[in-house]
């Protein structure tokens, strides 16, 4: 067990799977000679050669479709988007080819592909480069979505995604790449669909995913100073969704905040609220409160960007609200 970065954990997962299985290859912009725009694939060209680590032209629709086509023959492409912001150009191939192929071929043509790259905002990248893309990838059935928050999860979930026979989107975070954590050296996978209680406390549940897990944990620490103990449930996987884990925390604390980086309208949180009201209605002592990005495109100016992003203070206030405590915790 070594302490490594989230970036290196992703790298380790790709190498682990490429060592096991020659049908796995990595394609994307700058993934080979440049070692990846965010250096996630550092050293992989040297290790696997340009047959398996491939720089693509800036042709998102094309190389995504090419990877889907390759997957239709049983290869296991890892299709890297420099960021998911650019995958809008490719989304037709994600939805109309990858997501629907198995179904419309009656199971003949699985598409074992991984789409990965950072989602959501980094720092001051402005409107076109700061979008949390989860909703676009989960609304349609046929694609799975995982959102690792820690280095250990990054390695285990990406490895599982690569082995999975379905299209899996793995959404990372540019601001997570340097996060360090203990990661087992040995080969392992974390099954998709298993949420992880990153912290437990009986007073209130903060349910969240991806980068926001860290904000939730910080908020939980802040709340603890006022004697409020929060569950922090990291969904890790949005499709499949660990409904049992969600209902369990709801049943235990009766008060829920959903925290996500993306926009509110038809966001992941809307679905979670809908699920809880459907299956955990009687367990709720207060309406679920959602904390999301402000419903605006991401502004560039530092002060506006800070305002637009969901932060610790907002989470703390939301927790106090579902506890019917006055605003203004520390």
């Amino acid at each position, binding site marked *: 067990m070594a302490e490594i970065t989230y970036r290196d954990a992703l790298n380790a997962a790709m190498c682990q799977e490429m060592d096991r299985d020659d049908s796995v290859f990595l394609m994307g912009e700058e993934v080979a000679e440049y070692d990846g725009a965010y250096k996630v694939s550092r050293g992989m060209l040297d290790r696997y050669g340009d047959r398996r680590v491939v720089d693509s032209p800036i042709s998102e629709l094309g190389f995504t479709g*090419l990877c889907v086509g390759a997957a239709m023959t049983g290869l296991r492409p890892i299709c890297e988007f420099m960021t998911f912001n650019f995958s809008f150009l490719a989304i037709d191939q994600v939805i109309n080819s990858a997501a629907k192929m198995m179904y419309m071929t009656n199971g*003949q043509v699985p598409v074992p592909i991984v789409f990965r790259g950072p989602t959501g905002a980094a720092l001051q990248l402005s409107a076109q480069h700061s979008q949390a893309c989860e909703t676009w990838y989960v609304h349609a*059935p046929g694609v799975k979505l995982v959102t690792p928050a820690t280095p250990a999860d990054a390695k285990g979930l990406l490895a599982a995604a690569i082995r999975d026979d*379905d299209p899996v989107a793995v959404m990372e975070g540019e601001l997570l790449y340097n996060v360090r954590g203990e990661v087992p050296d040995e080969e392992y996978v974390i099954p998709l669909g298993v949420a992880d209680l990153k912290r437990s406390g009986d007073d209130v549940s903060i349910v969240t995913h991806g980068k926001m897990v860290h904000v939730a944990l910080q908020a939980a620490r802040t709340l603890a100073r006022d004697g409020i103990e929060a569950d922090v449930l990291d969904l890790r996987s949005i499709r499949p969704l660990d409904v049992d884990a969600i209902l369990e925390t709801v049943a235990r604390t009766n008060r829920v905040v959903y925290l996500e980086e993306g926009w509110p309208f038809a966001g992941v949180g809307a679905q979670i609220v809908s699920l809880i009201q459907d299956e955990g209605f009687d367990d709720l002592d207060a309406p679920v409160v959602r904390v999301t990005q402000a419903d605006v495109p991401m502004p560039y100016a530092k002060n506006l960007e800070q305002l637009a992003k969901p932060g610790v203070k907002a989470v703390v206030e939301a927790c106090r609200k579902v506890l019917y405590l006055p605003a203004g915790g520390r």
Partner: protein
Amino acid sequence: MTQATRETETGVNGDAAAVATKGGPGAGSGLRGFSRDDLHGLLADMLLYRRFEEKAEEAYAIGKIGGFCHLHIGQEGLAAGAIKPLRADDLVITAYREHTQALAKGITPRAAMAELYGRSGGCSGGRGGSMHLFDTSLGFYGGHGIVGGQIPLGAGLAWAIRYRGGDQVCVCFMGDAAVNQGSFLESLNMSAVWQLPVIYVVENNGYGMGTAFSRVSVTDMEARSGAYGIPAHTVDGQDVLETYRFFEELAGQVRAGAGPQFVNALTYRFRGHSMSDPVSGTYRSRAEVERHVEEQDPITILRDRMMDADLLTQEELEAVDAEARAASEDAADFADASPPPDPSTLYDHVYAEINEHGRLFLDGRGKGPAAGAGGPAAPGFGGGDHG
């Protein structure tokens, strides 16, 4: 007819660059290189395609087939001529006007017709329909409904061939209108950069729905691939023999490493764009269609040539046509008798894996872990009666 059983003389020059100017209507129209059996085989193939689609047309009219249905009638020379010379393990991918291409690659009339009927015996289990025929065990990769969507997928099939070190070839068909999709640029460019074993074939029937190619392009079709350094060829798709010879040669070149190719295959659609589009209309005159049916029917062209060369009698023709009709009838009977998909399979095959953890489907069915297969549809969705 396979490559092995017939003489190998062809009308295509061995040099990929040199073939760029080859072809055009009428070129290489002789029977040379084809045995009597070869010719009878191609005639039977095309007649089967024609009768099959006429049967589909009938079935559509009485509501046995639904949705969009795009007939290939008039373009059969290209299905036979481009696909028959391929090896069984070569790969074909195409758009939504693909019935005859599916037959050419080996999908049975029964499996194809049952798919059009939306029955469980269909080659996509009845879930795909007319636009989504698939049998990957035969190297037939569909049947895609988004114009241009199959082009990068075709590049991906070719990528997979190269990745595995195979010597197959991928033939990727598209309509003339599809070359105006960005996916065309991106796919051709990548194919050139990586020298993929793929032949892009434009079935140039002159129109995308109601739009003549000349209204959406100032250049000729041949100009489109040079931007990526991919050789362009033109072939007369109404001449099945020229087409056959041409693709046999070209596939061999690509198999030997010639890199990606672009073929402008001239053809004509004898029916409307789909079942709801009249045969002629605002965008093309009745006279234009009639002239093509008269002069450019690939079946008539081959038939006449064979008769002229005393390689086909009227009786033989009638026999082979009767066989094609019988096979189409049989396909329709089979389709009719084939049960619709089991309603309990509604949620099957959305995902390949039955997930042990978490829930894959979020519409309230199955409150336990998601069952990927065989679970009954939620009662709430059993009452669909809208439309």
